[in-house]
């Protein structure tokens, strides 16, 4: 199985770190993984996105063009990447900021009010973690949630104070999907 994902949002919404955590978690599970950011002109002020691949096979291009899953944290990202989803793919929408719905009927959409959930946990900046939890759950757990937390601890080794709250955010995202 190969998961080819695009995670997109405004610069500042934390989509890069979201992708890195997922990639790291995949690596910890022993899968082939790759992460690559868009580093194009849209970086400044505009939208940012990254491609994440987690696969049982060696990875060809790290750049995802036909995605099995897309996370859109804002409207421009939704508009840009909706068409990149392959048939049967999964779309996680940050419904806090996106009031539209996909017109495609060959994909499965999950509306996650990520900002609101994060806000309710005390910090709107954790919306990305909510979305990450939701994505992983929506995909039927590409990685074990505990792996994400392990990755989190590695990447944010210097900020142990934020671990607990982010774990809650991830779990809230999972819960939003699993109900």
């Amino acid at each position, binding site marked *: 199985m190969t998961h080819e994902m695009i995670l997109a949002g405004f610069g500042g919404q934390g989509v890069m770190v979201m992708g890195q955590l997922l990639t790291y978690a995949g690596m910890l599970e022993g899968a082939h993984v790759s992460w690559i950011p868009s580093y194009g*002109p849209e970086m*400044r*002020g*505009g939208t940012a996105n990254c491609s994440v691949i987690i696969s049982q096979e060696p990875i060809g291009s790290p750049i995802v063009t036909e995605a099995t899953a897309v996370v859109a944290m804002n409207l421009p990202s939704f508009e840009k990447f909706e068409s990149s989803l392959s048939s049967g793919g999964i779309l996680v929408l940050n419904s806090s900021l996106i009031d539209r719905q996909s017109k495609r009927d060959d994909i499965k959409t999950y509306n996650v009010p990520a900002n609101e959930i994060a806000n309710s946990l005390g910090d709107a900046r954790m919306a990305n973690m909510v979305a990450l939890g939701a994505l992983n759950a929506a995909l039927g757990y590409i990685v074990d949630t505990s792996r994400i937390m392990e990755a989190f601890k590695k990447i944010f080794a210097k900020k142990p104070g934020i671990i607990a709250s982010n774990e809650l955010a991830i779990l809230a995202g999972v819960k939003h999907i699993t109900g």
Partner: protein
Amino acid sequence: MNSKLYARSESLTDAPFHYCPGCQHGIVHRIIAEVIDELGVRKQTIGIAPVGCSVLAYEYFNFDIVQASHGRAPAVATGVKRVCPDSTVFTYQGDGDLASIGCAEVVHAAARGERITTIFINNAIYGMTGGQMAPTTLVDQVTTTSPYGRNVNQAGTPLCISEMLSTIQGARFIARVAVNNPSNMAKAKAAIKKAFQLQNSGEGFCLVEVLSTCPTNWGMTPLEAVKWLETNMIPQYPLGVFKDAGGE
């Protein structure tokens, strides 16, 4: 009711700037456009865009533009001006572009007394490439290539371009300005206007250094950035006219 107290200059296109929120590149663009409008030289102006955050200047200015390679805008401007001696030719350059890689080109444009105007945006950092140290980065300032703060022993001290170029005989007018408040903005505009006027009357090389913010790479809000500029940059880079070689 339809007349305007303040309207967008003709010398600006409609394209929205791609600059980060609060970045003062936009203010300097606006001032240049106003000056060119006021001098009535839009149809004879040729701007030279650098490599740096303002690389896309050609999308924003409503006159001819030549995009130059990194640091070489003064050489490109020289080529343009020699072909079009009656035109108004200016370069717009950042501190990486002008003070680092393009140091020789600006020194020699000044030495030749090249009849061009240079607008030099000193924001103490490489904006476009994501916040590396510039020759103008302050001592101890943290950047991505001085992650422990600019270390004097290792990376030296800030390069004061206006002071340095003022020693050159061919430099006609050299001033350093800031756009951090209305009064400085007025002075900035006056200096820029003068730098263009002198060119148009055939006098030598003119440069206006504008202290400018980079909220994104300084890691500050736009307002914090203005404050930081006032507290840290202006003491290192005093404002004023450094050279005015004219008799008038």
